[in-house]
Structures are given as structure tokens and as C-alpha cells.
């Protein structure tokens, strides 16, 4: 039984075009789930529906068997961390964190205990009397997290919380967020457009595109086994080959080239594509007699540091391949490419 579920959520601003369309999402207690996608895909909208800032035109938001769809923001008791942090500039760190507790009319002594304790957790005790403008980006971020966590929220919602930090701090903070989330066992929804950031801390990831969830799975499964072309492109697959199924694991590409692909995917649909990462294609000897071989010639070579990347012209279009530093090819070289059957994903 999931803790939270979105059921057939529709969001529209003008009543005509839908920002979200029949969106379904279920999250279990204690999970950290990320909404991942390019800007405009609807991930922030989804978060704002959960937060209560946007009322969907259709569908339901259920939390612990209770219909939350129409409950106003201030009665939901969710902790939200905003991209801009949205700290109150006229209040000290202490009063910023205490704000939510004051709204709950908790006694002064109790507030002091709770605020001191959470500031201790996020390592900000010494700065409690400072104002937000006197803090660094990372410190503001931690105030925002403390302020959201101190009210013991039913859900923690994070809207691109790391995007305003520099690269080094971002790595540190994402570990801290993960640690806090584990420690408090709080169910968390995390919105981001950064794939690496998302995969590193999430239990599950919902990859979104154009208002729909394309795939909802563990980071490992999304990375190694994307279910749609969009997801595949998003996680670094660059080569796509149109295929048609002949029988079993035998496929034909355009021009009659035969491929063997081991897949448990539904292959009855039209427009099947095989996709493979640049790292997984091997450049092999002319007289190799493996299956799934294609002829090609080097078109462009670029140096990536740990490897070379080649754009290779083939009968099936240009393929991107990463080659080792030991065996370097030049423009115009004719080579053979080996596409291992287990590395080709059908989408």
C-alpha cells in the first residue's frame, strides 16, 4: 500500500492545453523519489500539485488513505525546500526555523528545544542569530532544509534545491540530504534536471517528458534498461537503429542487415528501435566472424581524455562510438563495428 498516490492528475492553466495529463505516481513510505526531466516537462508542476500550490482540474491526490486534493497548503504539513530557498529576510536563522512551529502554537520552551536540536543536526548552531543575507549559499540551503524538517512534515518536497550551489558544494549537500532523509525516514520527492544528481540519491526515479511519466523505476534499471527512446537519450544512449522483428530474437535493420538481440521487451509494437551506448560498441578486426557486425568508416574523431570518440559513417547512418586510447583510428579508416546482442536495448 503506497503512502502517497497521484491518480489520473490533470493540470491545465487555460482549460485547453494540459500541462499534466492523466498522471499516475505511487510512492512508498520512506522512499526518496526523484522527478527527472528537461525544463518544461511538468516535474515542478507535479511537485506543486503535491504541495497544494496548484489544484488539478482532474484526478486525485491520496495520502495515507485520505483525499488531499483540496486541502489548502497551510493545512497539509509538508516541508518544502525551494530553489531560491525563500528564507524570510527579516528574521534570524533561529526565527526562520521557528516560524512553522510558531504557526502551530507550540510553547516557547518547546520551540527553543526543537529549533536548537535541528540547527545542531544541520550544523548551524553557531549562526542562529544571523540574518539570511549574512549567510553563504550552502548555509542558506541548510537553513531552508532545517526549516522544512523541524515541523516534522509528512512529506519533504525539494524543488531543485542544489541548482544554486557551486559544483563542489552540490556534491556535499546531496550526500547530506540523503543522510538526513535516511536518518529521519521521511518520504521525499525531489525535483531535478540533473541526471547524475538524481541517480546518486534516489530510491526511485520518474523520468518525465511533456507532462507524462515515461518511466518510473530504480536508477539502476533506468540507466541500464530504458523503456522509451526519450529516456534512453536522457541517460546517454546516442545510437538509434530502426528495426523490424522477423522471429524470436532476430531483427532486420533498414537495408536487410540482420541483428540478434536478447530482449524481454514487447516487440509486437510498430517502430521498434535498437539503441546502444557509445561505450558498448566495439571496433573489431576486419576478419572477426562475430554476429551483429557492421562496416563503417571514421568520419570525425574527438579526444575525450579517457578515450577517443568517433562519429562513424555506416549504412545505418552515423554511429557514435568510444574507442580506447591504445588503438587510435584516423579519419577515412575503414573499420568493422561489433554491437553485442546483450547491450542493444529495444525501445
Amino acid at each position, binding site marked *: 500500500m503506497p503512502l502517497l498516490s497521484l491518480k489520473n492528475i490533470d493540470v491545465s492553466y487555460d482549460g485547453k492545453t494540459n500541462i499534466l495529463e492523466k498522471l499516475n505516481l505511487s510512492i512508498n513510505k520512506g522512499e526518496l523519489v526523484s522527478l527527472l526531466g528537461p525544463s518544461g516537462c511538468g516535474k515542478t508542476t507535479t511537485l506543486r500539485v503535491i504541495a497544494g500550490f496548484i489544484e488539478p482540474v482532474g484526478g486525485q491526490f491520496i495520502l495515507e488513505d485520505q483525499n488531499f486534493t483540496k486541502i489548502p*497548503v*497551510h493545512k497539509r504539513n509538508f*516541508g518544502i525546500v*525551494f*530553489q*531560491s530557498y525563500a528564507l524570510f529576510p*527579516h528574521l534570524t536563522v533561529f526565527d526562520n526555523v521557528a516560524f*512553522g512551529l510558531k*504557526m502551530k502554537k507550540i510553547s516557547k520552551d518547546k520551540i527553543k528545544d526543537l529549533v536548537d536540536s535541528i540547527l545542531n543536526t544541520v550544523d548551524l548552531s553557531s549562526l542562529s542569530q544571523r540574518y539570511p543575507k549574512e549567510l553563504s549559499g550552502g548555509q542558506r540551503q541548510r537553513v531552508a532544509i532545517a526549516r522544512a524538517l523541524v515541523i516534522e512534515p509528512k512529506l519533504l518536497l525539494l524543488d531543485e534545491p542544489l541548482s544554486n550551489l557551486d559544483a563542489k558544494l552540490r556534491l556535499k549537500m546531496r550526500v547530506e540530504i540523503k543522510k538526513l532523509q535516511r536518518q529521519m525516514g521521511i518520504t521525499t520527492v525531489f525535483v531535478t534536471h540533473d541526471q547524475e544528481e538524481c541517480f546518486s540519491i534516489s530510491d526511485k526515479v520518474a523520468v518525465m517528458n511533456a507532462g507524462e511519466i515515461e518511466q518510473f523505476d530504480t536508477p539502476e534499471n533506468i540507466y541500464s534498461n530504458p523503456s522509451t527512446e526519450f529516456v534512453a537519450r536522457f541517460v546517454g544512449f546516442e545510437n538509434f537503429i530502426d528495426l523490424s522483428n522477423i522471429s524470436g530474437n532476430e531483427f532486420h535493420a533498414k537495408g536487410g542487415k540482420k541483428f540478434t538481440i536478447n530482449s524481454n521487451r514487447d516487440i509486437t509494437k510498430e517502430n521498434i528501435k535498437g539503441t546502444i551506448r557509445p561505450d558498448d560498441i566495439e571496433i573489431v578486426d576486419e576478419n572477426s566472424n562475430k554476429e551483429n557486425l557492421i562496416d563503417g568508416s571514421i568520419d570525425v574523431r574527438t579526444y575525450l581524455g579517457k578515450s577517443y570518440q568517433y562519429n562513424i559513417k555506416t549504412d545505418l547512418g552515423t554511429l557514435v562510438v568510444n574507442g580506447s586510447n591504445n588503438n587510435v583510428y584516423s579519419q577515412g579508416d575503414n573499420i568493422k563495428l561489433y554491437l553485442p546482442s546483450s547491450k542493444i536495448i529495444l525501445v
Partner: protein
Amino acid sequence: MKQNKGLFAFVILVYSFLFIPIIIIAATSFGSESYVAFPPRGFSLKWYHNVFTTESFIRTFKISMEVSVLATLIALALGIPGAYALTRFDFKGKTLLKNFFFSPKIVPGVVTGFVMFQFIVINLKLPIYYSLLLGLSIFEIPYAIRVIGSSLEMVDYTMEEAAMSLGASRLQTFFRVVFPNITSGIIASFMLSFISAFNNVPVTLFLSGPGISTLPITMMNYVEYNYDPTISALSVLLMLMTIGIMFVVEKTLGINNL
């Protein structure tokens, strides 16, 4: 270099044009002649004494103060929610409404005054004092909306969302989070509206009547019959008051931010 000299001369000219009348007024207020003379012959403070002993000045100064402060407070009470709605919500005809609220400052004062006279005094038949108060309040709303609106635009809306997510209702959010962050705008708007209401002649002229008049109107009447430096002395005092208020505005917000 030559060009700079020309510019320098031009700047001097402009400043002279602005300041010489003020200096002349100030100088004549200390003259001992019984008419406004420049340069003044002799030195006297009797015109200042005269200001404080003329009953109509004192009485209408009090009325002016009272009406200006009250009108400004009413304008703020209406203007703050108005400005909030105009900055925070999107609705049809928003720009039109924004411009409409500014119209009392664009339409010539005499026209505004006449329209208010027709509407408030003739049609609504309000007592003179309340007519004046209502008229000036309407006249000052644009300041409240404009100045507070620009303060509100600097307040990050997500801050309000944060407050709501922490359990604050809309009203609590406004008073605990928005209000403390626009106080400088409110102070500035108060000062500007007050000065504008206090100095106003065209609207007030139509809305004053027997027993209820403001200081600027009394001054105009006074000049019609007496051309002595009392009015210079009073002008100097009013200028000092305005300078004092502008000084406070400058300190709290900075005039350049308006």
C-alpha cells in the same frame, strides 16, 4: 575642456533658475518693510511672529495636518491590498486597472477637483469635512499603489509559499512575511502622499467650504488682500517641513528607488 565649461555654465543656470526664487522668498521673509521687497531692507523676525499669531493660519494648519494624515491613512488602507492584488494576481484588464488607479495624478487637478465636487458634494451631499477627506484619499491612492507596488515586486513570491507551507494562512502570511518586508515602501508612500495632500490646492479648492479650509487655500486668500512678508515666512516654514519629510524618506528608502 571647452565643452565642459559650457556644460558647467548650463548646470549653474538650471540650478539658479530652481533656487533663486526660493532664496528670494527666504530673504524677503526676514525683511522689515511691510511689503515683499528684494533685496530686503533691515532685518526682522516679526513676520514669523505674525505667522504664529494669525488665528486662521494656525486653525487651517491643524485642519490640513489632520485631513492630510487621515486621507493618507485611508489611501494606504485601500492602496496596500490594491497594490498586493495588482502585483500578485493575473487577471483580465490588469494593466487597464493599473493605469486607471493612476488617473487622479494624470488628469489635471482642476478637472479632478471639479468632478469630485460634482460627485461628492452635489450628488452624495456629504458634509464638507468628509468630502475633503474622501476627495484627498482618492487623490492619494495612486501613490500608495505605485510606491507599495514597487516594494511588493521586490518581495520573492516563493517566500509567501514557504510561509504557507509552514502552516501560515494567507492573512498570517501577509502580516508576518510580506508586511515586514515592505515597511520602507509604506513609510515612503506615507510621506509622499502626506506631502501631496498637504500641498494640494486644485482638489481642495473645490472641496473646502465655510469653516473648513486648508492652509494652502488660506494662504492664497491671504495673498489676495495682504502683500506682506508673512506669506514668505510661512512658505519658508512649509519648505523646511517638506525638506524634513523628504530627508526621512531618503534615509528609509532612498529617493532614487521610488
